[in-house]
C-alpha cells in the first residue's frame, strides 16, 4: 500500500523526521506511538502534503506512485485520508456541501460521474449512523461550534464517506471520553477491509484496546526505533517512554 524510505523532513530549518522507514500493506493496521515531539504529527502532515514542511531526502511510494510529487488534493483523490488532530472550522460551508464537493471532485478525477443528490443523501444517512453522528450536524457548517468529540467523530464520518485506501488517524483519541472513543473505534473497525489500511498515530495505548493493530512502531526523534506486535503498546504503557529514551539516547 505505502512504502516510506529514509524520509527526512524539516520545518523552518529544523529537522523533525530523520530517516524514517515504514511499509504498510493492504489489510493492515499500524500504530505509531512515541513521546511528544517525536515527529508523529509531522509524519501525518508530510504524507498529506502540508507545504510548511520541506522534504530533504527519501521517498514515499503509495500504490505504485510517487506520493511526494502529487499535490495535496491529488493525494486525497488517490485515496489517502488524514483525520486531523485539530479539525479546521470553515464558517458558512455546510458539512454536506463540503463533502459533496469533495466526493464529486474525487469522482471527476477518477473519470466517474457525479453522485446524485438522492444517492449522496442516502450515503450520508448510512455513514452518519456508523459514527452515531447527529444528522443535524451534517447540515451545520464544517466543524463550526462542534464539541471536541463531535469534531473527531466528524473526521471519521468524512472518512467513511470518502472510503480511502489508506487512512491516517492523527491522535484521533486525544480529548475523547471513553464513550466517544468507543464510537470512533467502532467506526474505524467497520471500515476495515482487506483492500484498505490504516496508520493510527497515538500517544496512549488506550485507543489500541479498541482498534487492534497488527504492528506497533515506536517513533523517537524522527525515526522508528522499535517495532512489535500489539503487546509492545502494553509494554510502553507500563514502562513509559523513558525506557525508549534511555535505550536510544543518541538518536
Amino acid at each position, binding site marked *: 500500500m505505502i512504502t516510506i524510505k529514509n524520509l527526512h523532513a524539516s520545518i523552518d530549518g529544523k529537522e523533525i523526521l530523520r530517516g524514517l522507514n515504514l511499509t504498510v500493506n493492504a489489510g493492515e493496521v499500524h500504530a505509531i506511538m512515541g513521546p511528544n515531539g517525536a515527529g508523529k504529527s509531522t509524519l501525518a502532515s508530510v504524507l498529506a502534503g502540508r507545504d510548511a514542511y520541506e522534504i530533504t531526502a527519501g521517498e514515499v511510494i503509495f500504490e505504485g506512485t510517487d506520493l511526494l510529487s502529487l499535490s495535496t*488534493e491529488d493525494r*486525497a483523490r488517490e485515496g489517502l485520508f488524514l483525520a486531523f488532530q485539530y479539525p*479546521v472550522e470553515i464558517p*458558512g460551508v455546510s458539512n454536506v456541501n463540503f463533502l*459533496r*464537493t*469533495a466526493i464529486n*471532485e474525487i469522482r471527476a478525477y477518477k473519470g466517474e460521474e457525479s453522485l446524485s443528490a438522492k444517492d449522496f443523501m442516502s450515503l*450520508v444517512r448510512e455513514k452518519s449512523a456508523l459514527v452515531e453522528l447527529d444528522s443535524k450536524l451534517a447540515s451545520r*457548517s464544517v466543524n463550526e461550534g462542534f464539541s471536541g468529540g463531535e469534531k473527531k467523530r466528524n473526521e471519521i464520518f468524512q472518512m467513511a464517506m470518502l472510503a480511502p485506501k489508506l487512512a491516517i488517524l492523527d491522535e484521533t483519541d486525544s480529548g475523547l471520553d471513553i464513550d466517544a472513543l468507543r464510537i470512533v473505534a467502532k467506526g474505524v473497525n467497520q471500515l476495515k477491509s482487506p483492500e484498505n489500511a490504516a496508520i493510527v498515530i497515538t500517544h496512549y495505548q488506550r485507543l489500541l484496546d479498541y482498534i487492534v493493530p497488527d504492528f506497533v512502531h515506536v517513533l523517537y526523534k524522527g525515526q522508528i526505533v522499535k517495532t512489535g506486535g500489539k503487546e509492545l503498546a502494553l509494554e510502553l504503557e507500563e514502562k513509559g517512554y523513558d525506557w525508549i529514551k534511555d535505550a536510544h539516547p543518541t538518536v
Partner: protein
Amino acid sequence: MANYTEENLAEELENQEYKFGFVTPIDSDTIPIGLSEDVIRLISNKKEEPLWLLEHRLHAYNVWKTMEEPKWAHVKYKKPDFQNIAYYSAPKQSKKYESWDDVDPEMKATMAKLGISMEEQQRLTGVAVDFVMDSVSVATSFKEKLGELGIIFCSFSEAVQNHPDLVRKYMGTVIPTTDNYYAALNNAVFTDGSFCYIPKGVRCPMELSTYFRINAGGTGQFERTLVVADEGSYVSYLEGCTAPQRDENQLHAAVVELIALDNAEIKYSTVQNWYPGDKNGLGGIFNFVTKRGICHTNSKISWTQVETGSAVTWKYPSCILKGDHSIGEFYSVAVTNNYQQADTGTKMIHLGKNTKSTIISKGISAGKSQNSYRGLVQIHKSAKNARNFSQCDSLLMSSECGAHTFPYIECKNSTAKIEHEATTSKIGEDQLFYCKQRGIGEEKAIGLIVNGYCKEVLNQLPMEFAVEAQKLLTISLEGSVG
C-alpha cells in the same frame, strides 16, 4: 505542480469577461449633452410633468449649483464633467407597451440576454418586473394581478401621472432634495424609476423587481425609486443593474426612498453588477447612490446588497429608526477587483425607543482595488434601550489591494447597547489545506470558503437573487441539500 492559489482566482476574476457588456442596437431618443435650466424644462416637458415637479427640479438644480462634491469617501476618481452628459435618453417608441407582444424584438432579446424573460417570469416564478433602460421604464409585468390587491407597481413617470398625490406626499420625505451633492443632482434631472405602494394590511404575494440597464453611450442614469409600505403591509423588492462595456465612465446617481409605516416591513435587495471597467481600470460606472428608509412604529426595513460592479461605488443604504420598536438591518457583500473602488456601508439612526439594528458587512478585495466599509451607528437621547450589533469582515485576496473599515459609533443614551466587531485577514491557509486533503482542488476550495464567508448575507437574498449573486461571486452552487 500547478498550484491554484488565490492569485489564480484573482486572475481568473480579473480576466473573466463582463457578460453584460453588450449594447442593444436600438434607436434612442437622446437629448443633447449639457445641463441647464432649459435641459431640466425639456426633460419635464418630455415627461408631461405637473408644474410642482418642475419647480421641485429647478429648486434642486439651483441648490446643487452651490454645493460641493463630497470628498470624505475613500475613493479617487476624476470628477464627472456634468456638461458632457446627456440627461435624457429613451429607447424610441418608448410609449409604454400595451401588451408584451408589442415590445420591440431587440428589446426582448436584450432582456433575454440579461436573463429577464418577462413571459417566463410571469409564467414560472411569479416575480413582477419593471425594466428600466437608460432614462425610462420599458415594461412592467403583472400589473393587473397586483392591481387586484390595490398594490401599485409602475414606473415613476406613470406614478407621477396616475398617482400624483401619493408621489407628492412621500417623495423627498426621507431624503431631502438637497441631502447631498448627487442626491440634489438626481432631484434635478431624474428621468424614471420605479414606484411601489402596498396598501394597509396587504402582504405583497410576489417579489417586485426592477431591472436597471444603462444602454446608450454618453448618458447617465438618474433614476428614483420610491417604495411605500402602508400600515401592516409587507413587500420584498429586488433591484438588478447592468451596463454595456465602454471606455468612458458613465454616471449612475440614483435616489431610493423607502417608507415603512406602522407595523410594515420592507425587504430591499440589490445585486449591483454595473460594468466595473476593464482590468486596467478603464471605463466603468460611477455609482453614487443615496438610499435611505424610514421606519415608523414597530416596522422593519432590511437592506441586502451584493455589490460586484461599478468602477467607483459610493453608497450607504440607511435606516432612520424613528418609530419605537422599529428594526433596521443591513447585509452587504462587496467585491472589488482590478482598479475598482468601493466605499459602502450604512447609517443606522436610532430615534425611537427599543429600536434595534444589525449590520453585517463582508468585503472581499482582489487585484489593485480599494474596498472600504463606512458606517454610522447613532443613538440619540430619545432612543432608550436601543441595540446595535455590527460585524464587518474583510477578506484580502491580493497583496496590492486595500481593505478599510471606518465605523462611527455615536451614543447619547446611557441605556443603549452597542457591539461592533471588525476583522481583516487573508483567506485561511488551514482551511485551504483541510479542503485539499479531502480532495477538493484549490479553486473550488477558495470558492467554498468565500461562499461560506458571505453566507450570512447571501442567506438574506430571495432564492433567485441568491443564485445570481453566487454566480457573480464565482462560487460554485451549494447543493439542494443542507
